[in-house]
């Protein structure tokens, strides 16, 4: 299940400093090693700046019109 893959990966990176450093240095290899589906791999790649570097710019507000 794709949701579970994302959840498990974020949890592992959040609780494993070594994995976090590895992700920061070589995200492509880490993502490939995990064997994600192309869709999950693409999503995880978008999460990398936030997971590995704590970069908040990737979660910039989207101002969706459907929410007031």
């Amino acid at each position, binding site marked *: 299940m*794709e*949701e579970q893959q*994302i*959840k498990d990966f*974020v*949890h592992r990176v*959040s609780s494993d400093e070594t994995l976090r450093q590895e992700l920061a240095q070589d995200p492509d290899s880490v993502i490939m090693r995990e064997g994600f589906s192309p*869709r*999950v791999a*693409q*999503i*995880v790649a*978008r*999460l990398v700046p*936030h*997971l590995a570097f704590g970069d*908040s710019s990737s*979660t910039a*507000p*989207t*101002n*969706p*019109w*459907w*929410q*007031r």
Partner: protein
Amino acid sequence: MSKDRLSSFSHYAAQQELLRERLHLILATLHPLLRSDVQQALEEKGKLLYQPDKSISLALPTGNWALLPLLIAQYVNPFIDDAVVSSVGVAIECFVCALDLLDDVEDEDQTPVVQKLGVARTLNVSTTLLMLAQQALLSLAQQNIPSDRVLFLLDTLQTSTLHATAGQHRDLLAEQRPAEDMTDEECIEIAAGKAGAIMRLACLMGALVADADKILCVQFSEMGELLGIAHQLDNDSHDLYYLLQGQTSTEDAVHPGTVTESVKSDLARGKKTLPVVLAAHSERILQENAAGADEDSEEHKAALQEGIITTWGICLLYRDRAHDCFQKIEAQKPVASPLRILLGFE
């Protein structure tokens, strides 16, 4: 701003004018005192009668709940009558505005309109809007729409209302439950029952009124539900993010305190949004302890941060699934920029 985007905004402006005219026609049937209150609700930010400060942003068109079914209907049948599509658009606008008001009251949010009208009048305005939504659909019978299709549109609205109220009820009941007892799936189901059901309805109604075939109706419905869920998760993760960072959102910059206060109120009420539930699972932090002594601990913040990132990732997943549906729709016929931009696929 790109040429496509600029031209889409001109298109929106023309369609919004059409929708406003239709809305005013329907509002004209109300008693002046009631009409004034209903108009106030429809003049809130993002609603069809909202008057945006042009200096703020061109990126936030108004009345998009009405625009969505209108543009979908025009996609399915480019020759569809303006009066017909605007009636359906207005019905959705009134329906969503009614549910928003109920949500404000149920969550005890002190939004500008609740502050102005008070709870009793807000509830009456909501009832009025729900009836206006039905009236707008019934008016289709006078616009040469076959009565069986009008009945089907009304039935679709009723079914979606029941779906959305069930989602809302589960959300309210979840406030009484410990976050760690909730599952991720339940959070998604609640999002599907609320935002998902509403967006599904808006997309489906546009397709139905234009007499789309069953396959296209299913594709638009599925895309709407997936987008609705994605939007809810996006909202939940960003709201909590701002609160955690002690920052205000761009919405707060325009209407000070609006989002931050609403999120604080959600947390205080024990709302079980996906990032909160994930954080509770991750660190075994109960939602009711969020306001306790541990709320400033690094572990608690790290668990919430993990919940936010995971929720954002799942939001992207739903958005991608919605995009798959969009591509299936587009495989049949290209989608023009105004609808594409409104859906967020450009």
